[in-house]
């Protein structure tokens, strides 16, 4: 994408796109960046409205209680101090060894001042590295060199982000290293005080949009891999297991590294699937026996090797996992297969690959395919969760009645208000769930913390589900708003699609009705807000016995009959 395309996008119709408000606070001119963010947002169907602070007036802007920054109701606030100005300040203030700490304190003051006026996510740019121009390489031995202080700031930014859920770091430093392009155009700096070259501005904007997109619930969840010449060199069916290139054989190194990447993604919570045109026994053999394979059978949640079309197989994988096609990435060395999948399943992300396999991973790394805005305990176990699900599916086929099957599962659910341990996962569910989500309101961890503290206004429940095959973890969230002393309004009702058809929604209803009864509420009302993805809960309230009521759904607590469920409430 170049600036011309960005400009062209700005003139296009954004109607129907998700609206997102972004504020940029910077000490340099950001007009190009602002245009690029909006223009690139178009490609992701995001209607990003960008508000820029007066040029180089961060302190004045935030001190002014009447500032547009506060009435703009920004979802994301980018804080971008340039390394140019940072360096100037460092030398002007006499190369102070407390410089990094002071800079972090300054940034923290900015965010806390803004937070006292408006609730927003902060995305703080870090600072590109450079060779120290005063001490040279010796700078590493000197604690008041610019190079040391600047790197210390970058590290402290990460510590801050790890401790504060509202703070995220935009890794300008990593982006600069990856693109390797001249990121500064000194002519732009002198003539308009914009720091970055136009080319780098586009990279930065692209990166910012990826982050916004991940925050908006569009993170990728599954990586589907071809095998021959994608996970190993050569063709297993022709070459045999001894001759495929992996490890030290041929260009095996390349494939070993691709596997290491896939494995690390799996540990982070990305589901791995295999989709290959092969006989299954041949395809599985390396996973079971080859000593140099990094990936093993355990790592692959769905393994499909047959001679059918890849798009049919990917549809099958999607149906097993029950996740959106748009959350899947498919990697295949064969251009024909890539194009077939793109044609039949345009929602799936199918990266083009370079001609030389040695460049595969280098290229894939430039795409930042798996940007995320959360990482929780549940993510690490996701592969296990989906594997248990496959066992359950097998078991369900051996029962003729659904009730018998549900009884056989010995399901238990823990129900409790949000606490410090569950808040990150609750926030993640509100951000990532698209299908079983009645109103699709997204909440940050900060929002959730606030809601769980407002006992006179909200009552919130989290639900786990476990059965004899294992735990699903925290899979359900209901937030009730106390609209008046008779009515509870369902602000959020979200459930993971992993636990459909278990009677979980009936169980959740029983729980909130019991709460309503005990606290003398007369009714619970709910609302369904239609999106492109939540069609499955269109009749949710009707199915549970709610009655239509002026665009909302309502159910009275009097005479409510507990729904029959096979889930036991646990209080561990």
């Amino acid at each position, binding site marked *: 994408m170049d*600036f*011309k395309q960005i*400009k*062209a996008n700005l*003139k296009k119709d954004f109607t129907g796109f998700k609206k997102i408000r972004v504020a940029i606070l910077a000490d340099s001119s950001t*007009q*190009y960046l602002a*245009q690029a963010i909006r223009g690139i947002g178009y490609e992701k169907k995001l209607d990003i409205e960008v508000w820029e602070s007066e040029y180089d007036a961060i302190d004045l802007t935030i001190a002014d209680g009447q500032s547009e920054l506060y009435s703009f109701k920004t979802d994301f606030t980018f804080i971008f101090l340039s390394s140019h100005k940072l360096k100037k300040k460092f030398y002007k203030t006499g190369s102070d060894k407390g410089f990094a700490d002071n800079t972090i304190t300054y940034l923290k003051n900015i965010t806390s001042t803004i937070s006292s006026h408006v609730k927003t996510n902060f995305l703080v740019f870090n600072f590109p590295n450079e060779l120290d121009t005063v001490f040279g390489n010796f700078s590493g031995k000197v604690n008041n060199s610019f190079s040391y202080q600047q790197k210390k700031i970058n590290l402290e930014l990460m510590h801050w982000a790890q401790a504060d859920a509202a703070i995220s770091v935009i890794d300008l430093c990593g982006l600069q290293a990856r693109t390797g392009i001249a990121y500064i155009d*000194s*002519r*732009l700096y*002198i*003539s*308009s005080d*914009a720091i970055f*070259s*136009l*080319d780098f501005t586009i990279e930065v904007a692209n990166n910012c949009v990826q982050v916004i997109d991940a925050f908006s619930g569009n993170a990728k969840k599954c990586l589907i891999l071809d095998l021959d010449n994608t996970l190993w060199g050569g063709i297993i069916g022709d070459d045999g297991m001894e001759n495929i290139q992996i490890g030290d054989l041929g260009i095996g190194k390349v494939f070993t590294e691709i596997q290491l990447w896939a494995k690390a993604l799996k540990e982070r919570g990305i589901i791995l699937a295999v989709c290959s045109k092969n006989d299954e026994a041949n395809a599985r053999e390396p996973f079971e026996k080859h000593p140099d394979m990094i990936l093993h059978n355990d790592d692959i949640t769905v393994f499909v090797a047959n001679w059918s079309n890849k798009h049919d197989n990917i549809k099958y994988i999607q149906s097993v996992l029950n996740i959106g096609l748009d959350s899947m990435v498919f990697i295949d060395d064969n251009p024909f297969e890539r194009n077939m999948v793109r044609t039949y399943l345009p929602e799936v992300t199918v990266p083009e690959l370079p001609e030389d396999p040695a460049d595969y991973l280098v290229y894939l790394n430039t795409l930042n395919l798996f940007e995320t805005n959360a990482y929780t305990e549940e993510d690490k176990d996701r592969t296990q969760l989906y594997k248990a699900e496959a066992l359950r599916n097998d078991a369900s086929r051996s029962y003729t009645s659904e009730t018998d099957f549900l009884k056989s599962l010995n399901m238990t659910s823990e129900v409790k208000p949000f606490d410090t341990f569950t808040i990150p996962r609750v926030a993640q569910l509100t951000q990532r769930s698209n299908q079983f989500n009645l109103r699709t309101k997204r909440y940050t961890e900060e929002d959730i913390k606030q809601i769980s503290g407002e006992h006179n206004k909200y009552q919130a429940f989290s639900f786990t589900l476990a059965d004899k095959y294992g735990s699903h973890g925290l899979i359900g969230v209901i937030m009730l708003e106390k609209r008046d002393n008779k009515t509870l309004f369902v602000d959020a009702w979200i459930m993971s699609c992993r636990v459909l058809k278990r009677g979980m929604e009936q169980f959740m209803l029983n729980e909130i009705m019991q709460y309503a009864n005990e606290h003398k509420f007369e009714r619970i009302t709910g609302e369904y807000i239609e999106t492109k993805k939540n069609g499955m809960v269109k009749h949710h309230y009707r199915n549970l016995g709610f009655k239509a009521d002026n665009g909302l759904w309502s159910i009275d607590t009097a005479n409510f009959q507990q729904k029959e469920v096979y889930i036991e409430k646990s209080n561990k």
Partner: protein
Amino acid sequence: MGTTEILNECNKIFIDQLDNESIILKRETTAADVEEWDSLTHIQLIVAIEKFFKLRFTTAEIQGFKNVGEMCDAIEKKLNSK
């Protein structure tokens, strides 16, 4: 590349970058004559011209062109000294 040719190539770049088919550049054309040519798009045009002719303007040049003619002269001078 001759003077006319340089002007023609610049004209194409202006049309392309500013997405306006009706732009006709003359040597005496200034930013005031082309609606979309402002301080922001100026940089976009400069970068596109630099990429096309594979050259680089100085800061003083970028800030100092009085009209299209001066810009074309600078391009010609740089091409000839290559």
